[in-house]
Every structure is written in structure tokens, then in C-alpha cells.
């Protein structure tokens, strides 16, 4: 087009650089989040899918107590089954140097032929065990690294009651242990849980499973009907003590990873638009102000013969330049953020490789949406250009008409001084602009507040789980349900002050067509160390009849207190029992169900048996206690509450810690963007008024009040709205993120609220200060000479 207009374009951009930059930052953050999150989704999905495919990750899993190998042929004939593999698995304890207590571990058999097998391991160092070398094992890489064990080292392992020395010949990763935690925990502690692969003959011999298997892996054909396959497997394995077959979507490692990905997907769709809308609103205000003050120039250009479109394009170019600038900034920032996030993911998700894969389309989406949304914000303003008659533009400006607002609450007004009236009248005269600013600030605040509330929810979950529900010092699991006598044995150990038995029984809970494969935990009556608590955090007395469901279970099964439920018990005589829901308990980890321990044992005719025990240990006696526990043959593992709590705390401090910071920054940026723009526009519009006040003898601080008072009003109105929106949003987020794996409580969060308010007020003060500095530097006489 025309050169002078181009010069004007760049000069305008330079003149409003502060505002333009603030808007670019808002757009940039939106685009960055989108690029980062969709990039992470692409990276994680791709890596997962490739990994699963290359290592033939199974689609269906089923475990039994013991099934003869020939049963596998029956399974192979199931319609829809593609490949099938059997294996032998068990639990073991590994002695490690850095810990008094042995580490519990899964032991898996490794086929020694050279065929392709399901859930194939990925060797990361060393080699596989050689055929016939029964003392050779492969260790899970992250565990080996955590304990500094290298191929060539030896480890001492207690397997099925007897201690043996193994040679570590390699380390490996596995698609079934991408995300894993010690039993009963959800946060990975790579040092506290291990996986050992041993050649199948050796392991079968050690576990008395020669010629038999206790786990089946299965892949499906494309056209297979999962439910039908699961039913068939259950039917075939029924006689062998099946715990119920389940699909890969219920595989713990896969579930954690998949839910992380879908959480990211949801955020990638929902969070960036908030930033885009705020940016569009800001552009609307800035361009609107610009067109208003350039009425004369616009009229002049029109009088010279420029068309409406040509004039509009000029302003549109400005909008597009800001939007593009922001989008490009966002793309770059998104890549950086994505790269920075990858190490956090690889800490918790053990993938063979994870490169931040740019989703090229996300660049395009980011740029297109920001330009489109920004232009829409501007287009509303540009209509005014079309409406402006050239002659009108040349007339001297008439003062904006406040007469319509003059009559409001005369009595109230009479108590106010003139500057306050000026502030209030302006707020009232431009309700939509003020409302826009209020909503924008509230939205930014809500975004950060909700995240802060969620984090406080995590803290609450941490406290509830480790200090209120579980008050023990350690939890001991047994290799097999043990007799009551073990309680007395442990009570005799010097240093153990309290022992509470626990019985855990695998079960499928059913209500009509709804069902959930889980476990029922039997607790001692009047338990002190681990308790089922109700919504008001009061212990629930376990009744002699009926089962207590945790909230997620009640939701999944759609059951309320008093309704009947079917328990399909997968242990012992495997009875199917109809009973009632006795109570609902609030638990934040997993989806437990509780019963009285004797009632539970009664159901399966295994009186006086326990699968584990909660211990209270006297301070200072720990080491001795651990040594004694370690030597008890039936002990499969001991987990310490402090360690589990620390693992949880660590994840909060690392991952969540940095997100807290990012969230805080984003709220600051949005609030700052909005308030700074509002303040700048208000200042530009009122340079003359402010100069007049200065001429009349108002001090700088008094003059600033007239301008900043408006911002204070907007900010103050936005604060309660932001708190409200933040709380609503946190409920939505908590509901969205809570699964049967873990639940996020939404808590009353005075700290989070205080922080969010501080961030918003800080941003408001910063922009107020910047604008006040501008006012103070404005030359009174020059300001009076300007015509508008």
C-alpha cells in the first residue's frame, strides 16, 4: 500500500510498545502452553505406542494361583486372541546396602528361547541370562541405578522364604513398568521397589511352579471383543484360582501414563483459549482507543479518498503484527518449556526415549488462532471506521456526555469528593469496558487460584493419607496369608508397640452391569493405626455385616449406603456373596473397600488369617526391629510410612513446585497485561484532564488517585469474582483429574487464596506504578496543548 501509512504503522507500534508487549506476552503464554502441551501429548503418545508395539505389550492380563501349562492351549483357542504367553511371577525381597530393610520386588520369568515374547524387556546394559545359568538375573534399570548396582554385581534375594545370591548380568526397561510404585503406593520410589527377571526354569523351580504358570499375557486381534475375551479367560481359568482377567486399560503403569496424556490433552484444549480471549479483549481496548483518538486522521484519509477497507487494513495490520509477534514468542517459549518439562516426565515415566516432539500443527494452530481471535477483537472496533463520516472527524471533539450517569444515587454522591465522583462516573459510564477488565482479571486469577487450590488439595491428601488415615510407622506384607500367631510373634519384638492385622482379598465388586476389579481390606475392629474415615474425618465402626466403600467405588458402582452389592471373591473358595453397602468412606488413594477382618475371613472360610499388618514402632528401636522382621520367613515386604510420604512430598516439591511458579507467573502476566493496558488507555484518554488537575494545584498523588482509583475499583471488584471462579474451576479440575487411582480433595484454601490475591494486587500495583511514573513525567503544558 502506501508508504507513509507503513511508517505510521511502525511508529504506532513503537508508541504503544508497552501495551503491545503486554498483549504479546498474554498471547505468547497461551500459544506456549498449547505448543508445549500438545507437543508433550504427541511425544508421550508416540513414544508409548512405539514402545508398546516393539515390545509387544499385552492387551490382556490374568493371574492365577497355579495353572498347568496345557491350559495355555485352551486360552490360545479363544476367539479374538492373537498371541499368548504364560509366565511365572512372584514377590521377593532384595537386600540393599543403603537401607536396613530389604526392598520388595516383583520377580518375573524370562523366556530363554529366542522367540518373540509379549512384554519383552528392553536391555539397557549387559545381557540376558544364559540358558542353564540359573543364578543370572536382569534388574529393572531405574532400581539398579537408584542402588548403583551394575552388571557384574551380585545381589542377595529372599525368594519364597530362602535367601539366594544372584549375579546381575544386565539391566532393562519394560513397557509394563513405565510408571510403577511400591505395592499400595502411587508415587514412584525407584529405590524402594525393584523388578527382577530370572530365567523361567530357575524361577519356576524356586516358586514350585514347574510345568505350570501363574500369569497369562495376551494380545488381541483387531476385531476382538474385549469383554467376550475376558469372559472366556475367566471361565477357563476359574478352576485355577483366577483373580480375574483385565484389559490393558486397567494395567496400572499404562493407566497412569494414559491418564497423564489425556489430562494434558484436556488442558491443551481448554487453557490456551482463556489467554486468547483475554488478548483479544486487550487488543479491542487498545485499538478502540487508537481509533478514537485518531478520528481526525481517519477522517482526513477518507477525505483524501482512501477507502474504508484501506484504512481498516492499516489498523488490522497493527493487530496482526501484535498477534503474530505474540504467537512467534509463544512458539519459541513453548519449545523451551516443552524441553524443560521432558526431564520431569522421564523422572516418573521410564520410557526408553523421550524427545520433545514438535507437533508442527500446533504451531499452525497457535498462530492461526491467535491471529484470528485477535482480529475478531479488532474487527469490532474497525466497524467504527466505516461508520465515521469524513466531515464528522474534522469537527472539534465534544466532551463525552456523562449526563446520563449524573443522576445515579444523588444522595450517595453527595458524600463523595469530586475526584471520587470522577472515578465512579467513569466506571459507570463504560460498564462494558470495566466489566471486560474485571472478568479478564478474574479469569487470570481463577486460573492460578484453581491450580494453587489443587496443590493445597495435594497437601491435604498427603496429610490425610499419611497422618490421619494411616498412623502406623510401617506396613508388613506376608508372602501368603499368615496365621494369627504371627501377630503375637511380632508383638514380642522389642520396640513394636502395636500390631494391627489386615486381610486383603481380591474381589470383583458388582452392581448390575457395573463392576470393579479391586480388593476388600479387612481391618481390625477399633483399629488405631489404619482407619476407614467418613466425610467428616471420623472413624467408621466396621459392622459385622456389609461392606464400606470408598467414594470413587461408590461412584463407579453407582451405589449408596444401604443398597445391595455383589462381591465376587477371587480367593479361597471363591464365593459370590450378596451384601449391603454399610457406609461410604473418604479415601484419597486408590479405591479401597473395607470390612471387619473376621467377617471377611468368615466369607472365605479362612478364620484368623492376615495378609499384612500395620506396626507402630518405638522411636530409636527401628534398626533392631527391621533386622528381626527381615528374618521372619513369611515377611514379603516392609514399607515405611515416612518413605512413602517423602516420595509424595518429593513429587510435590519438584514437579508441582515449578508449576506453582509458572501458574503464578501466568496469573501475574494476565493481570498485569489487563491492568497495565486499562491504565494506559485511561491515562491516554485523560492526559488533559489530569494536566488540568495539576494546573489547579492538585498534587501528583491526588492526580494519580483519579486515574488509579479506577484501576483500584476494577481490581477490587475482580478479586472476589476471581476467588469465586477459582473455586468453581478447582472443583471442575479436581473432578476431571480424580480417578479411582487417586482423588484430589478440594479444600478451603486460605493460603492459595492469599497468594492469588497477592499476585493480582502485585500486578495491579506494578502497572499502577508504571503508569503513575508516566503521569508524573508528562509535561503539563504540552498535555494541555493537545487537542483531545
Amino acid at each position, binding site marked *: 500500500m502506501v508508504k507513509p501509512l507503513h511508517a505510521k504503522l511502525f511508529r504506532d507500534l513503537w508508541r504503544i510498545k508497552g501495551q503491545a508487549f503486554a498483549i504479546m506476552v498474554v498471547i505468547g503464554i497461551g500459544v506456549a502452553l498449547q505448543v508445549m502441551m500438545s507437543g508433550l501429548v504427541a511425544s508421550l503418545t508416540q513414544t508409548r505406542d512405539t514402545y508398546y508395539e516393539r515390545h509387544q505389550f499385552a492387551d490382556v492380563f490374568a493371574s492365577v494361583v497355579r495353572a498347568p501349562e496345557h491350559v495355555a492351549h485352551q486360552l490360545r483357542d479363544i476367539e479374538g486372541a492373537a498371541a499368548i504367553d504364560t509366565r511365572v511371577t512372584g514377590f521377593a525381597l532384595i537386600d540393599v546396602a543403603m537401607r536396613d530393610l530389604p526392598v520388595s520386588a516383583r520377580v518375573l520369568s524370562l523366556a530363554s528361547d529366542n522367540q518373540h515374547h509379549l512384554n519383552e524387556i528392553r536391555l539397557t546394559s549387559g545381557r540376558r541370562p544364559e540358558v542353564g545359568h540359573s543364578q543370572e538375573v536382569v534388574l529393572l534399570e531405574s532400581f539398579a541405578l537408584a542402588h548403583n548396582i551394575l552388571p557384574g554385581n551380585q545381589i542377595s534375594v529372599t525368594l519364597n522364604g530362602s535367601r539366594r545370591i544372584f549375579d546381575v548380568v544386565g539391566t532393562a526397561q519394560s513397557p509394563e513398568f513405565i510408571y510403577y510404585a511400591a505395592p499400595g503406593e502411587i508415587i514412584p520410589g525407584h529405590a524402594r521397589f525393584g523388578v527382577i527377571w530370572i530365567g523361567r526354569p530357575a524361577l519356576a523351580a524356586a516358586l514350585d511352579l514347574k510345568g505350570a504358570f501363574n500369569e497369562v499375557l495376551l494380545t488381541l486381534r483387531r476385531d476382538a471383543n474385549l469383554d467376550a475375551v475376558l469372559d472366556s479367560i475367566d471361565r477357563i481359568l476359574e478352576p485355577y484360582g483366577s483373580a480375574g482377567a483385565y484389559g490393558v486399560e486397567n494395567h496400572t503403569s499404562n493407566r497412569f501414563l494414559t491418564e497423564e496424556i489425556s489430562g494434558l490433552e484436556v488442558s491443551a484444549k481448554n487453557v490456551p483459549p482463556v489467554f486468547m480471549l483475554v488478548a483479544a479483549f486487550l487488543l479491542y481496548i487498545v485499538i478502540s482507543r487508537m481509533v478514537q483518538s485518531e478520528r481526525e486522521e481517519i477522517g482526513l484519509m477518507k477525505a483524501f479518498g482512501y477507502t474504508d477497507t484501506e484504512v481498516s487494513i492499516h489498523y488490522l495490520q497493527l493487530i496482526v503484527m501484535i498477534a503474530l509477534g505474540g504467537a512467534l514468542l509463544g512458539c519459541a517459549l513453548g519449545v523451551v518449556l516443552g524441553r524443560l518439562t521432558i526431564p520431569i516426565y522421564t523422572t516418573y515415566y521410564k520410557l526408553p526415549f523421550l524427545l520433545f516432539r514438535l507437533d508442527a500443527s500446533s504451531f499452525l494452530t497457535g498462530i492461526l488462532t491467535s491471529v484470528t481471535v485477535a482480529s475478531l477483537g479488532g474487527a469490532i472496533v474497525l466497524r467504527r471506521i466505516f461508520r465515521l463520516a469524513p466531515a464528522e472527524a474534522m469537527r472539534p471533539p465534544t466532551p463525552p456526555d456523562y449526563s446520563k450517569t449524573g443522576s445515579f444515587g444523588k444522595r450517595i454522591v453527595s458524600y463523595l469528593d469530586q475526584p471520587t465522583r470522577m472515578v465512579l462516573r467513569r466506571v459507570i459510564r463504560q460498564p462494558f469496558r470495566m466489566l471486560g477488565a474485571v472478568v479478564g482479571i478474574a479469569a487470570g486469577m481463577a486460573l492460578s487460584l484453581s491450580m494453587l487450590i489443587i496443590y493445597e488439595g495435594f497437601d491435604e491428601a498427603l496429610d490425610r493419607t499419611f497422618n490421619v488415615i494411616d498412623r502406623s510407622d510401617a506396613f508388613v506384607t506376608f508372602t501368603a496369608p499368615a496365621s494369627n500367631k504371627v501377630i503375637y510373634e511380632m508383638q514380642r519384638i522389642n520396640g513394636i508397640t502395636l500390631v494391627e492385622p489386615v486381610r486383603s482379598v481380591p474381589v470383583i465388586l458388582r452392581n448390575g452391569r457395573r463392576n470393579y476389579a479391586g480388593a476388600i481390606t479387612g481391618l481390625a475392629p477399633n483399629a488405631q493405626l489404619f482407619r476407614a474415615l467418613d466425610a467428616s474425618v471420623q472413624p467408621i465402626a466396621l459392622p459385622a455385616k456389609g461392606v464400606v466403600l470408598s467414594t470413587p467405588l461408590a461412584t463407579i458402582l453407582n451405589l449408596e449406603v444401604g443398597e445391595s452389592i455383589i462381591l465376587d471373591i477371587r480367593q479361597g473358595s471363591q464365593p459370590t456373596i450378596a451384601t449391603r453397602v454399610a457406609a461410604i468412606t473418604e479415601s484419597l488413594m486408590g479405591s479401597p473397600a473395607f470390612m471387619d477382618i473376621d467377617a471377611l475371613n468368615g466369607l472365605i472360610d479362612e478364620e484368623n488369617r492376615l495378609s499384612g499388618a500395620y506396626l507402630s514402632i518405638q522411636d530409636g528401636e527401628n534398626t533392631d526391629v527391621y533386622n528381626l522382621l527381615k528374618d521372619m520367613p513369611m515377611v514379603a515386604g516392609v514399607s515405611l510410612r515416612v518413605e512413602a510420604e517423602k516420595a509424595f512430598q518429593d513429587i510435590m516439591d519438584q514437579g508441582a513446585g515449578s508449576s506453582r511458579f509458572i501458574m503464578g507467573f501466568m496469573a501475574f502476566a494476565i493481570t498485569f497485561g489487563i491492568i497495565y493496558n486499562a491504565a494506559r488507555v485511561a491515562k491516554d484518554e485523560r492526559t*488533559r484532564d489530569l494536566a488540568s488537575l495539576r*494546573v*489547579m*494545584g492538585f498534587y501528583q498523588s491526588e492526580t494519580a488517585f483519579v486515574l488509579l482509583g479506577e484501576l483500584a475499583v476494577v481490581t477490587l471488584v475482580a478479586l472476589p469474582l476471581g476467588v469465586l471462579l477459582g473455586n468453581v474451576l478447582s472443583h471442575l479440575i479436581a473432578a476431571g483429574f480424580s480417578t479411582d487411582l487417586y482423588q484430589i480433595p478440594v479444600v478451603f484454601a486460605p493460603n492459595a487464596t492469599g497468594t492469588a490475591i497477592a499476585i493480582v494486587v502485585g500486578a495491579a500495583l506494578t502497572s499502577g506504578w508504571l503508569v503513575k511514573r508516566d503521569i508524573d513525567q508528562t509535561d*503539563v503544558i504540552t498535555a494541555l496543548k493537545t487537542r483531545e
Partner: protein
Amino acid sequence: MLDHGQTEPYAAFRTKGLSKIYGEGRSAVHALRGVDLEIGRGEIVVLLGPSGSGKSTLLNILGGLDRASEGDAWFGGQCLTKMSNRELTTYRRNHVGFVFQFYNLMPSLTARENVELVTEIAENPISADEALNVVGLGKRLDHFPAQLSGGEQQRVAIARAVAKQPEVLFCDEPTGALDSTTGRAVLRVLQDVNEKLGTTILIITHAAATAAMADRVINFSDGAIRDVQLNNNPVDAEEIEW
């Protein structure tokens, strides 16, 4: 003619070698080149001179809106050129009223409220209603600027300037944007204020005829005073030939 070197006890303003240079080096503009001046209390002073001759600059310095580059200016016994920014603000707040060509009213305040803006912070104001009565707008107290004509807006501006009962009133082309009838009415208002309140008034104008209403006429050219005339028989503003 007054003797310029002489310090008279009743002088409202006195300047000595007052200079103002805008910019630096080659692009420097000498807006004032050593102005020596004395203005008596209660006088109406008219400043005449071509555009760009430095009239506004002088008025702004005397009004405490701008600072001189060299020389001194006194308001009574106070030396304006030695004051801090805050002291200048206080000086404006307590002693000075301004009227400009563009009325500079607050659009969000009614006529009365615009005046109250000043009475609220002044030490010894008359009421806003009274000030608006003085300028003949007693019946339009609750109108917003957008509802008033140019002449009426300027009269509100004058009421706002005089409501604090300032010792001095500075008017920079107060009739510049008005037609002759309205302009005369506005000048009449200024004369009234001078008579009723004894306010010293400095008026910058392009209309040489306005000189007829002044006690003292200062002719400006090129940043310096060319001559000063005293008028012993100021006429009524209504009789000025436009």
C-alpha cells in the same frame, strides 16, 4: 510609567532578567530573552504580541507551570524561580487561577462539581454556587460540559478559576475559541471578578482592542517586552470594539 528598578510593596509580580530557552544547541529556541517586569495588585494586565513571541511562556512561568532558564520571578515576597515542584503546586493551589482557550473542564463532572473540584482543596473559597452566579450560570449548576455551549463552558472554567478567590488569574486566550458577543461577555465576567474580588488578572489575547479594558498593556515581541502602556481609563468590556 512605572520605574522598573523600584520594588513597590504592593507589586503582585516582579521579574528580573527572566529567560527561557527550549532545547539545546542549534535547535535551541529563546522563548524569553531577559524580561524585567512589574505588575501591581488588582490590575488587569493585557499581554499583546504576535504568535510565538513568548506570551504563554511568561504566563506559564508566573503561574508556576513552567520554570525559567535564567533570571528570577517573585510573587509578592515569594521567589517562584527557587521553588520546588511541590511548592509550585502549593502556590498554584492557594494563589492562582487559570483559564485556557480550550476550557479543560472535566467531562465527568457537572458545572457545580467542576467548580467544587477546586473549592474542596482551596484555603478560602467562595461556594461553587456563588462562583457560578458571578459568571451568570446560577441556573445551569447541574449541567455536564457536554450540555453547555462553548461560552458557557468557558464561564464555568472562569468560575472554577475564581472560586478559590485567587490573588491572580491567568487567562491564555480565553476568548480565542469564542465568537465576539460571547467573547465580550466572558471578558465582562473577568472584569466583574476583578471589581468584586480585587483579583489581579493577566490576559493574553490576539484581539488588540481588548487592551481598552486593561490597566496595563504589555506589548511583546520576540521574547522581550517592547513597551508597556498604562491605561488610566479602562472601558467596560461590553463596549470593546471587536
